[in-house]
Structure formats: structure tokens, C-alpha cells
């Protein structure tokens, strides 16, 4: 285990009732990186984060966060961690400013320090003009930004972000990404879970894909794509697409997958596919580079989870 790792987990296991939801998870963060934890609904991402915060005890395994053994010294670890939970838990009894103030007090931060830090955080979150607004009056994006600002009140070295952009519009999402890049520039380490592959590709230096409680792939996004998937994807749409795949696609692509009337052809050489599709002219298609989403779907399957 790397002693300098901001977070190292080995052999983590957690069982709820009869079901093991975390089954032997190992991972370690490097200082200053953004590490992505991806996985379908119910994969065990939030449970893993809860274990790392010491909010529940593992049935097996060990966790070290910022040099503190967790759960034994979880309180000391949490002093130096920021948390953006999956579901907002801002305090509806307070204004935006009060939310930051009260949360800062939970960390025993002095009023003098808080008075200096809160305006900075309000700026960071783009909420300076709404500082005295009540929580109920905020949009989803504003709440998420405030939750992120609140997570930074203790100037943490490590920030846990559980789906920070789920449910946000593209504008709000881009603002959050920009802020997260900002945090990386300041040298903070981020642990991010997300369902947006694009988000992971943009922000994360390394990702782990989790399914059924296990990490099934880990590495840099580009490397994972190169390792697991053909570089070109041709998506073919329409009623006649499955038929086309059977007669032509499957013979000329390394792999074809179907969901309904859409065919995904994975290949190193898209030229013959495109030539044929152009010649027919009756099937709509899209040719693109392989992405992390293709890796994710290949490894975790296309079936619904919940």
C-alpha cells in the first residue's frame, strides 16, 4: 500500500442482509488526481464512499484516508475531507450564507476564518448575489453549487463527489466541471462517481468501473478505451438495420451489438461499412471514435439494472 496515497482501500467487503454489495474492492488515489468511480445503478459506489467516510463498518478490508485508519479515526479523517453527497442535504431552515456558516462551525472553524472564507466560496459558487436567499428558492444547479461550496468550507485536501452533476442542465454541468478543474489546479484530490462517461473522460486521470460490487476495470480513460474496444464505431439506425447487420455488418466489423433497431459496429477499419451504407443510402448511420461509454457498456452490458 502506498503510504502517501490520500486514500487507500484494500479488500473492502460489505454485506446487507444476504446480499454482498461490495465484494473485495481495492483502489488507491494518487495525490492531486481526480479518480472516477463508475458503475451502473446499485453497483456499490455510494456504499464504497460511505465505507471510506467511516459511516458504516466494512465486514472485511482496511481503509486509510489521509493517513488516518477508517473507521477508527474517521472523525479525524473527515476533518480534512469535503463531501458532496448524492442527494442534497442543505439545511432548509437557513439561508445560503447561514448554511456555509453553520457547516463551518461543525468543523470548529473560528468565526474570523469563516468570515473571510464565506465570501470566497459564495463567489466560487456564483451565489454572491443570492447570499441571503432561502434554500427552497434555489434551482437544482444552484443547490448543487452550494453543496460543492459547503464541501470546501474546511479547505479539504480530499473531496468526495457522489454524482455531482446528476439532474443538472448542460450549462450547470459545465460550470461544475470548471469548478472541479479549478480544485485540481489547487492541488486537491477528487474522488468522483458519475453516470456521465463524458464527465469522467473530461475530468478523471484514472477511473475504475465497478459492477455488482467489484472493480472490473481500472486505468486511464484513453488506455481503457484502447485496451477494451475497437477504435471506430459505426452506429446504424432503422428498421432494416438488424437485417443489414446479419447480411453485411457482422462480416465486416469485429463486433456488432444491437439494441432494438440500432446496431453498433466496432471495428479497426470502418471504410467497408461506410462504403456499403453510402451505396445503399436507405440507412441512417453515424461514424465516431470509440468512447468510454462503449467500454462501459461492453463491460457492464446493456440491460437495465433496477
Amino acid at each position, binding site marked *: 500500500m502506498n503510504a502517501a496515497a490520500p486514500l487507500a482501500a484494500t479488500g473492502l467487503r460489505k454485506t446487507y442482509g444476504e446480499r454482498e454489495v461490495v465484494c473485495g474492492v481495492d483502489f488507491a488515489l494518487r495525490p492531486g488526481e481526480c479518480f472516477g468511480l463508475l458503475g451502473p445503478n446499485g453497483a456499490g459506489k455510494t456504499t464504497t464512499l460511505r465505507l471510506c*467516510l467511516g459511516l458504516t463498518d466494512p465486514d*472485511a478490508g482496511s481503509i486509510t484516508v489521509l493517513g488516518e485508519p477508517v473507521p477508527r479515526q474517521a472523525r479525524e479523517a473527515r476533518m480534512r475531507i469535503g463531501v458532496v453527497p448524492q442527494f442534497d442535504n442543505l439545511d432548509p431552515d437557513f439561508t445560503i450564507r447561514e448554511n456555509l456558516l453553520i457547516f463551518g462551525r*461543525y468543523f470548529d472553524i473560528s468565526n474570523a476564518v469563516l468570515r473571510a472564507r464565506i465570501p470566497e466560496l459564495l463567489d466560487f459558487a456564483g451565489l454572491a448575489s443570492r447570499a441571503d436567499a432561502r434554500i427552497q428558492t434555489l434551482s437544482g444547479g444552484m443547490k448543487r453549487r452550494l453543496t460543492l461550496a459547503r464541501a470546501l468550507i474546511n479547505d479539504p485536501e480530499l473531496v468526495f463527489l457522489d454524482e455531482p452533476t446528476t439532474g443538472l442542465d448542460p450549462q450547470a454541468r459545465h460550470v461544475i466541471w470548471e469548478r472541479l478543474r479549478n480544485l485540481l489546479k489547487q492541488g486537491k484530490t477528487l474522488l468522483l462517481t458519475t453516470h456521465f462517461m463524458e464527465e469522467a473522460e473530461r475530468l478523471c486521470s484514472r477511473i475504475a468501473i465497478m459492477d455488482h460490487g467489484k472493480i472490473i476495470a481500472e486505468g486511464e480513460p484513453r488506455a481503457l478505451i484502447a485496451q477494451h474496444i475497437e477504435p471506430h464505431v459505426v452506429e446504424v439506425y432503422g428498421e432494416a438495420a438488424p437485417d443489414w447487420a446479419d447480411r453485411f455488418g457482422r462480416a465486416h466489423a469485429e463486433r456488432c451489438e444491437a439494441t432494438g433497431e440500432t446496431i453498433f459496429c466496432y471495428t479497426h477499419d470502418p471504410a467497408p461499412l461506410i462504403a456499403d451504407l453510402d451505396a445503399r443510402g436507405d440507412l441512417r448511420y453515424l461514424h465516431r471514435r470509440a468512447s468510454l461509454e462503449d467500454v462501459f457498456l461492453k463491460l457492464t452490458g446493456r440491460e437495465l439494472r433496477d
Partner: protein
Amino acid sequence: MSARNHWALPQFSLRFAQVWRRNRLVWRKLAIPSMLGNLADPLLYMFGLGYGLGRMLEDVNGMSYIAFLAAGIVCSSTMMSASFEAMYSAFSRMQMQKTWEALLNAPLTLDDVVLGELVWAASKSFLSGSAVLIVAAVLGLVPSPLALAVVPLIFLTGLAFAGLGLIMTALSPSYDFFMYYFTLCVTPMMLLCGVFFPLDQLPAAAQVAAQLLPLTHAVSLARPLVNGTVPPSWLLHIAVLAVYAIVSFYVALALTRRRLLQ
């Protein structure tokens, strides 16, 4: 490593005070209406029954009925206020607003949170009970300075009922659940524990049962003190209330750990 032992002894830290402070800050925003609301109910009982019923009665245990009633109402309003705060309000913070979840992401433990809620509910009930005592004093129903000893008693009574309320909160699936506690525990205590009439008016079996209930012991202390005498077996009554407070807090904590720290 084995799963957490929910019955492990509590580990206290001073951070519980931050939970108390948060709740006080919310309360302060609505302090005046909240205080008036809390006072209205007990005062209605005290004046309604005290003057209405009191006119028909001779002295009760050597005092006017309204003076007799005042000490009981101090205790019952403390019970009501602590129970409401520890159930409806704490449940809102735990289940609806997820305030406790946010606290647990900060360097607080669930032990801090539950202790903070206990002391907060007791503090709030302390205000209610004391307000009734003050009104009674202003009306001249409190003849002795010995009544000052009622002040810490109100807080202890608040702790006992806050602990019981927090047990209900730890078990509750929804707000409706609290109605059972009110119907099956709070209302019977109002009637059986000597708030409205002396215990010795009850059948013998009910008198024995009443001795098991915390409100009985609060009333048994408060009434003589308000009237200027030292209560017989005062140490026993204090001990019963203290045991209720400590044991109920411990049970509430274990049940809340089981609920939230899975």
C-alpha cells in the same frame, strides 16, 4: 473486522454542542411565536381547570386547586414540549431534511448528534416548564423560594422525556407513528401521574403502576417544592428520573445507530 456494535457505550465529544447550537439558531428565528404557542396550551389548562373546577373544590392537599394544578402543569408541559421536540422535530431533521446526514459528513459522530438532540429537546422543554412556573409565580401561586429547586428539576424531567421521545424517533417509519406514543403513553401519564388530582384518588393497582412512570416522580418533587416543603424521599424521585434519562438515551442511541449506520 466485525460490524459495528450498536450497543457499544456512547463516546461523547463536545461537538454535540454544535448540534444544540444549530437548533437554537433555527428556533431563534421563530422564538416569540414558538414560545407563545408552547405556553398557550398549558395556561389554558391551568386557568380553565384551575378557576373553573377550582371554584367547586375545597382545598386540595392543603392548597387551592389552582396552586395544586400549577405544579402539575409545570411538569406536564415540560413532558409535552420535550416529547414534541424529540419526536416530530428531530424526525424532520433526521428523515425529511437529512440534517443529521449532513452532520455526519462533518466531523461529528452519531453519538454527538443524538446527545445534541437530547440536550436540545430538554432545553426547549425547560423554557416551556419554566414559563409556566413564572406565570404561576406572578399569579402568587408560588409561596416559597424553595420553588427555585424546581428549575433544575424541569431540566431533568426534560431529559427523561427527550430520551423516551428519541427512542420513538429511532423506531418511527413516519410521523403517524408518534400518535401511538401520545395515545398510549403521554395521555395516560397526563391522567395517572397526579397532574390534575392527587394520586391517592386512584385505585390501588393504578397507584402502583403510576409509580413506574417518570411523570409521577416529577410531580411528586415539584408540588411540595412549589408549596414550600421538601418532598419526602426526594432522592428516590430524582434517581428514577435520572435513570429514565440515562437508560432512554442509551437505548435511543443504539436504535438510531442501527437505523442510520448500516
